[in-house]
């Protein structure tokens, strides 16, 4: 009989793979991988702020994390040099995070939990939130797949075609930010970058079609996640770290093969 922690970890890996497939792939198509790192670290600031304000507003810290991550996405969407905007927002939010962590010393471990994440320590609430967000992300991306693809390929062409390209750009980057936040609870703010970006980047190297990239990215993330989980059961390894190592190794192997 499987332990309930393991069951939750398996569900989390499935959800993580869906997010890596959708958000990861569009991040690669938009050529903005740094957005994931920026959103994840901004999310820490949001979570730390909500924990610091817990005595006044009792809301799940992840909502604060989502708001901060979306703010980074918005600054990237608005800026002419998206990576510069993300970098500045990254630095700003890390400063805010450290400031709040210094104010909530006794609760700081909860924020550090988000920094490193743990697949085996997820609660039912965490899984529920991940599932709801993932379903929303699937619905939005299925509904606006054509628009997202068009703006990733040619933003100005999309505008001339009558597509509300700016709106869809904000929407897509926000989706990526939300996806980053909900998955970082499982793998942590540092390793979420590897888990969302590496499978999609590897799939983009190997796949021969758009659909192929989505499918292959999901498969790579699933494979990396399960290897991480499996090894962590038998050895005292962090499952997220192993998963991230496997995911990035897949990229390097395919990169080497392709070069």
């Amino acid at each position: 009989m499987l332990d309930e922690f393991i069951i939750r970890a398996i569900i989390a890996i499935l959800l993580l793979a869906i997010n890596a497939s959708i958000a990861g792939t569009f991040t690669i198509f938009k050529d903005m991988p740094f957005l994931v790192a920026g959103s994840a670290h901004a999310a820490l600031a949001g979570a730390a702020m909500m924990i610091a304000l817990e005595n006044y507003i009792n809301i799940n810290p992840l909502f604060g994390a989502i708001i901060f991550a979306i703010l980074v996405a918005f600054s990237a969407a608005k800026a002419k040099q998206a990576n510069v905007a993300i970098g500045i927002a990254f630095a700003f939010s890390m400063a805010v995070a450290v400031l709040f962590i210094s104010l909530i010393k006794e609760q700081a471990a909860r924020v550090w939990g988000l920094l490193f994440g743990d697949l085996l320590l997820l609660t039912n609430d965490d899984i529920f939130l991940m599932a709801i967000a993932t379903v929303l992300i699937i619905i939005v991306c299925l509904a606006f797949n054509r628009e997202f693809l068009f703006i990733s390929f040619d933003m100005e062409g999309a505008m001339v075609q009558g597509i509300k390209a700016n709106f869809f750009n904000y929407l897509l980057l926000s989706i990526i930010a939300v996806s980053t936040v909900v998955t970082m609870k499982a793998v942590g703010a540092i390793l979420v970058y590897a888990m969302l970006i590496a499978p999609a980047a590897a799939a983009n190297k190997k796949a021969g079609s758009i659909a192929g990239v989505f499918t292959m990215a999901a498969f790579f993330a699933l494979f990396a996640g399960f290897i991480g989980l499996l090894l962590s059961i038998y050895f005292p390894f962090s499952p997220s770290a192993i998963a991230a190592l496997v995911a990035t190794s897949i990229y390097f192997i395919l990169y080497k093969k392709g070069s």
Partner: protein
Amino acid sequence: MIEVKNVSYAYNGNIALQNVTFSSKDEFVAVMGPNGSGKTTLIKLIMGLLESEKGEIKVFGREAKEARNLIGYMPQKDTIARHFPIRVKDIVLMGTTKRRFYTKEDIEKAKKSLEEVGLPHLWNERFSSLSQGQQQRVMFARALAKEPKLLILDEPFSAVDLPSRDKMIDILNEKRREGMEIIIVVHNINPILHEIDKVLLLNKKAIAFGSPREVLNQETLKKAYGTDIQIVVCKEGYCHPLIGDEHA
């Protein structure tokens, strides 16, 4: 029909265009000038992608933004993404409609455009696997698939092989005869000099606008490029400026 009156535009205080005025009706117009002369800015203003700070632009009697559904656009090759495995059909279909799902008619329209540019066999191919000339022709097919009243092309012959370029010029001539209005931004005007009705010589200001015979001479070219430009007069009496690495 395009009317541009006293239009100015600046990027963060740096003037890109100053008091540009010209108009065209059912014509094939080339916009030429040195790098940074405001050619791309001008067409972005005509398409409503930028808003002019001063002046007025009307496209078929409408505000620029309102006329987008009448415009087919082929952007500069460097502005499009080539790093993911998008297929030719996905790109050409983009030009057919803004609806969320493609109809049978949209697919037929896209196939017809790809056939027009001579690449029907590439329908299912990966865009990134094509030669630069083929990629440019695919982008051209996307602009045609919209069946626009006004076709705007930004450096369409850049890095294009000669057969592809000649094929594109033949199609432009055919579209022109069918009544399509065309604005083309070019660095090297020579390949289309005999085909166009008007030239706008630009260097932030409109240096000259008129037929190629009226506009292209050593005096106007020097004014636009800031240096003497060699010209070759062909037997039909056109002045071919020798700009860049391609000569007349």
